[in-house]
């Protein structure tokens, strides 16, 4: 947990997250991430061997747990015209996006 983040790490993570970073932006992100990761490294002081991770709160008292799932029946969703009215580019039937596969 003491790994130092490099500019290459930030660029790799930015690619995973589909974020385009400007040159100066990457440099300040390296600095910020290292400061934050140094700070969170204090969690290493705690022995958590055998502690079951708490991922979500439904298991706690008063919550509904598994029973919260509704019956598996079809219900109408928003109609197409309503949804497409919000799309940046559409032919009113589909969302239009730039070409996905480029010719080499």
């Amino acid at each position: 947990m003491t790994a130092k983040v490099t500019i290459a790490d930030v660029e790799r993570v930015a690619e995973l997250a589909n974020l385009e970073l400007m040159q100066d932006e990457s440099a300040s992100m390296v600095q910020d991430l290292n400061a934050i990761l140094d700070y969170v490294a204090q969690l290493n002081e705690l022995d958590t061997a055998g502690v079951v991770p708490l991922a979500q709160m439904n298991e706690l008292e008063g919550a509904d747990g598994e029973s919260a799932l509704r019956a598996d029946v079809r219900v109408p969703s928003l109609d197409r015209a309503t949804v497409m009215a919000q799309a940046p580019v559409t032919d009113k039937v589909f969302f239009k996006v730039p070409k996905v596969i480029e010719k080499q």
Partner: protein
Amino acid sequence: MKTTETFVQKPKSVAELREAIALGRVKAGELAAKYYDRIAEVNPRLNVFLSLTRGRALEQAARVDAAAAKGDKLGPLAGVPVAIKDVMVMRGAPATAGSKILQGYQPPYDATAVSRLEAAGAVLLGKTNCDEFAMGSSNENSAYGAVRNPVDTERVPGGSSGGSAAAVAANMAVATLGSDTGGSIRQPASFCGVVGVLPTYGRVSRYGLIAFASSLDRIGPFAGNVHDAAIMLGVIAGHDEMDATSSHSPVLDYAAESAKPVDGLRIGVPEEYFGEGLDPEVRAAIEKGIEDLKAAGCRVKPISLPHTKYAIPTYYLVATAEASANLARFDGVRYGYRSPKSETLSAMYRHTRDEGFGAEVKRRILLGTYALSAGYYDAYYLKAQQVRRLLTEEFLRAFAEVDAIVTPTSPVPAFKLGEKTGDPLAMYLADIYTVTASLAGICGVTVPCGATKSGLPVGMQVLAGHFNEGTAFRVARAVESAQK
């Protein structure tokens, strides 16, 4: 003496307004118009509202007035002017989440909390400013400009629900809704001198709340007093089949609960919340509040929550990991902004997100993606979830001994605009007393509890166990009635 402007004005209470409307002494339509006048007057200085929903508000007010004239039974919020943090959707009104990436988006449906307010008679005035995607502790991360604190316009209102807190403090709405992921209702409420509620996780449906960190996000009310906040929670709480994490746990009459006496209640005071970094004037105000609780018959005892110092690192790993997944949906395809630099699909994604997101949102997406990436998952995300369990169990043990826990809501009063913007970590530490309850899923109420010598409000945080909002309201009301 302060030389800056102040816009503080106490709203009339919900009960008082509702009665006046029911008796026809006040018309809901005229009241809404008065609030729009107030907004027009002070919004240019405070930047609280991002959009107004005047048509919908006046239609609703007319319905309330017609019902009142006929002598029909009115809802608990009949005619009460309310505003909504702009991370919740309202049909046909812009929803920005304080971000450029949602520019132009007009959601086609209402959040459950919004429709429940309206069904109870509330008049929805508009949408309030906030940090982008609720990420921030000062409201300075909004793409639409910072909100100013009505108490002192040189200072931040807190964040991320800064607009919703400031709206109540400046009487631009009688009550508002905010969202709280790590302190985003409680901290701004304390900075602006109003009441803010963090309901138990699952108490209020998140349907229609733009997601930041789904295991932490909660919707809750702001109001000018504890009783009003309790009425608001009673209206929005309860199971909703649109949110699988919303609970069937019975909704109590929180307003009635808040009025119950507190004598005999056991109050825990955790030493870890009174250590280094706590402003001496905030400490003095909270200690005075604790004396008031003793005088009201509470049994106050010191307790220890030794994992408290691990809450901020745990929170910033869990919250950013969840955010990096939740914010993947903003890609320029289905709604909101799309970059003109979209020659290929991948360029469209990258440029849309680069131009659409602000620096703090990018920082958190990167941190979260890093914490979830191969080789680091166990060391960061898994570790944080394990510590989250330790923190939660620590609270559960404490609540076997005490009925409520009281702490300062924030270690400092409202700070100056620009004071912390250069140092992300310093900004994260502003949440040091609030992230613990967020991680543990427990509930809390922040209530005004004195002020600094220069007149900045101090808030006391009253925490209670899962689905024990009634006790938190009771204690908060005892603190409130001892003020002045």
